[in-house]
């Protein structure tokens, strides 16, 4: 196998100049003191009153997930050595699904806690699919007080967007996440971390979420260098990131995102077949004469299969996708006409006033 021999030699050469790697148990020993267990008051039906967090400063700032625990009035944190401390919420950013806590009281201050340097960790390159990882969390509350986290081993499966169960815009975080091939997202695991095999932090383990694309539970972590652009209510956009949240601390103000129905949909002049079954295929039934869709060249019986590159499963999902456009926006529709695919660009207009009674909505809804 010439390929393998070559690879072997090549990588061997590089490795020999680096510091020897830590053994797995050493990595675990290095990471564990930086992890905390979080407890809230119970009372949330079916939801665990415990979670996980990670220390990100020597004076007791903790990064975790923005979940139901944050509504708890008396948050408590257990450090690695079993020290039990109250915690207060510093900032929550729902768009990043992240929360920042501060532990300790006026009387108990820290300046020497072990921690992850998130600012420098965020500068390391993206981990590729196939990278082996370790996951640290307080899943199922197996650990208590001074017991270490549950550690799992797995691999990065993908770096991909989340598609939540409710609708494609409803996932807690809209950027790319690390999907992993270990079953990490268990009750209480949210706020835990995944690291590479050297123990460098890669991401924050997310909530338990069913993936709309596959209808299966998905295991994921929000990357530490998460940065997304959010469209605000006033129409402008703003970049938000975990590093920004950490840097600003108390000064951090979460953004107010614009409603998902951004454009409210423009007028195209398309009538679809009645939307009656679970997944009615979006066949065009009728086009209003002179409408943008008709002028663009669409025809009855065309089946719309992609909207700006996003696949369309049914009329319902098509209508959901169309909501983000507004008059004057252009949309690229890929249609199936017989056995041929065609791309047609339609520019939305304002609904014609004369035909106000014929607003283009699916008739069958």
């Amino acid at each position, binding site marked *: 196998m010439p390929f393998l021999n070559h690879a072997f030699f090549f990588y061997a050469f590089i490795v020999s100049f680096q510091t020897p790697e830590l053994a797995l148990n050493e990595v675990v020993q290095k990471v564990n003191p930086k992890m905390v267990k979080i407890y809230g008051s119970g009372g949330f039906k079916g939801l665990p009153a415990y979670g996980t967090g990670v220390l990100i400063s020597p004076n007791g700032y903790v990064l975790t997930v923005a979940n139901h625990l944050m509504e708890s009035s008396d948050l408590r944190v257990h450090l690695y050595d079993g020290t039990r401390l109250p915690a207060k919420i510093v900032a929550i950013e729902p768009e990043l699904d992240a929360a920042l806590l501060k532990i300790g009281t006026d009387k108990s201050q820290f300046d020497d806690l072990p921690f992850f340097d998130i600012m420098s960790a965020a500068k390391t390159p993206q981990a590729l699919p196939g990278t082996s990882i370790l996951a640290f969390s307080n899943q199922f509350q197996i650990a208590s007080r001074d017991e270490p986290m549950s550690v799992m081993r797995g691999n990065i499966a*993908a770096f991909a967007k989340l598609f939540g169960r409710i609708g494609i815009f409803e996932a807690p975080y809209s950027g790319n996440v690390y999907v992993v091939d270990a079953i990490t997202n268990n009750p209480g695991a949210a706020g835990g971390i995944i690291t590479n095999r050297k123990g460098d932090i890669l991401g924050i383990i997310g909530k338990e979420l069913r993936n709309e*694309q596959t209808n299966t539970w998905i295991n994921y972590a929000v990357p530490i260098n998460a940065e997304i652009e959010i469209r605000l209510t006033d129409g402008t956009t703003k970049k938000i990131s975990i590093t920004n949240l950490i840097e600003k601390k108390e000064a951090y103000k979460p953004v107010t995102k614009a409603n998902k129905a951004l454009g409210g949909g423009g007028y195209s002049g398309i009538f679809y077949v009645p939307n009656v079954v679970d997944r009615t295929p979006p066949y065009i039934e009728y086009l209003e004469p002179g409408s943008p869709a008709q002028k663009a060249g669409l025809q009855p019986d065309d089946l719309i299969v992609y909207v700006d590159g996003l696949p369309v499963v049914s009329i319902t999902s098509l209508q959901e996708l169309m909501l983000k456009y507004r008059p004057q926006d252009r949309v690229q529709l890929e249609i*199936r006409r017989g056995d041929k695919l065609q791309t047609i660009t339609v520019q939305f207009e304002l609904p014609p006033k004369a035909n106000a009674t014929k607003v283009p909505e699916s008739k069958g809804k």
Partner: protein
Amino acid sequence: MSSLLLLVGVIEIMVAQNSLEELQEKAVQAAVQRVSPSLVQIETTGGTEMIMGGAAPKGRRPGPATGPGVRKGSGPTTGLVVSPDGYVVSSAFNFANKPTSIIVSTSDGKRYVAKVVATDQARMVTLLKIETTGLLVPEAAPLGKLQVGQTAIALGRTLGGSPGAPPSVSMGIVSALGRIWGRAIQTDAKISPVNYGGPLIDLQGAVLGLLVPASPQADGETAGFEWYDSGIGFAIPLEHINSVLEKLKQGKDLRKGLLGITMQSPDMYAAEVIIGSVVPNSGGFKAGLKAGDKISAIDGKSVQNHAQLLHQLGPKYEGDLVSLTIVRGKDEIKLDKIILSGTLASPPLGFFGILPMRDDPAKGVQVRYVFPESGAARAGLKEGDRILKAGLGADITKAAPTTEIANRDALATLLSTATLGQFLAVEVKREDGTTLTLKGPIEQSTSFMPDKPPEKSSLAKLDKEPEKKAEIGTIKKQNAAGDRNYWVSVPINYDPRTSYALMVWLHPAGKGKDKDLDDLFGTWDQFCAQYKIIMIAPRCDADLGWTPGESDLILESIRYGTETYNIDRKRIVAHGMGTGGQMAFYLAFQQRDTIRAVAAVGASLGATPKERIANQALSFFLAVGDKDPIRETVLDTAKKLSDFQYPLILREMKDMGHQYFNSITFDLMATWIDLLDRI
């Protein structure tokens, strides 16, 4: 030279100590890169939300965890190029919801309309065709060289969006070979809809197999789905797929090869391989296998139990040849070149042609109606005749032995053993007091629907007032657990002395609100009173529709009906629309001893129907609007059911979409329910 070699050796040792994992990561990424141009992304439009049907794993209770009902995700799925001229294979699971349109995107981002060419139904692998050339075909790892424990990497194209992005990766090892009766490789990599249809590769980037859900206990597209991401995953060897590729390209589905025998003992491991029965016209039947034969070897390999036989038979297809050694009495017989069957043809259902009177207190069966042109009509039976004795014979010119017939059920049981070409001899007493012996041929069950069978259907004695008054009108009931409820509609003219049909309404997704049920009961009211039907409407829990785990609630509501009212067990009908219709199919095939008929509106059967069972009649009434988007799949369902010789009425409603009945169909269905106890 030698010092250089030494140096390399030293470095290798350091590597072994320090960074095997890093090496593995790089090797994995290289292997993935090598095969990823052969991965395609598959997107579908339309189809059903839920995939119902398929067989529940044998010997296990169907429930939410193991049930065959699966909600189909909306994301893309994965396929693998198998020839440069546009052939792609994928898991049949990815098309189990019968999508309207399939689009394949190759790794260069180009999109193509794809057609399903054929499916290997034994391994649940589907072959697709796109119109292109020059696709990259991956290398198949030689099956003979696979080792348990070697690295196995599962790849998929669901996550990550674009078809050119790196595929998703799940790492594992080969856990076992020859699984699923010799058909699959087992791996502990995480296998799920994320990578069904994608390849399982080795560290060199050669393809071990195609990832599919699979289970040794069940067949069908969704079998084994319950094990997703569990560390129990399966792949069909690519080498094997390549070996049947030419056959699949012909466009004909490949089916599992069957001998057509059942075992005397249900114990797969402890009992000897003794044949319990041989299905007529099957390969085993034609080869002369008989009940009581003991199979001692197949293709020269000795077998001690049924499981070993299945292991040898598992990889084979319809049309393949096997040789058997059997022990019959003291003889050892070798049977060569037995041609395996693909389906076991159900014999057509025998039908005589009468409708019996119900609630008959007297001995025998009084004829309510004689179907025109039926065997009964040709025998000369008339309405009002009372059948006292009956018997089956092979030759109509000769007499047949008859035995006394106690009631309607006894006659039906006798008929369930009848085959076409036999005749039924009956001794009848006419209304004028004369006694005759009549003979008529057993014929294939007909879908003929008389306009109106005689209204009088019951011989219940109505002289005495019933002791107990039953609740009538709309009754709201709660299940025993107290967390769910169901409605019951009893006609105001209900009389506990006469028997009623029971119709279980399984509403479509999202149509289980009070108003919906009120409306439905309202529309059926007059038909229920006229045709003596009691309706029960359980409600499903989720907005998205019924799940197989809800069978228990439905059965509980049926039990309430049968225990509280006078219900004719021959006429318990599961009636549903949309996902409710799918649930009706599912329920009927799972609860054969309870459900006698399915009336489904705008709903299709997900999987292949199960075989008919003698004396557990199951009839179907399918209605679909001729403009319903799922019309084609309903027609396909009708075809499948009639292939299995189930009595079937298919009604296409003119100028209708995905809608409930028009008025003509109400009448038709009510009449059909009235005819369910025909003999």
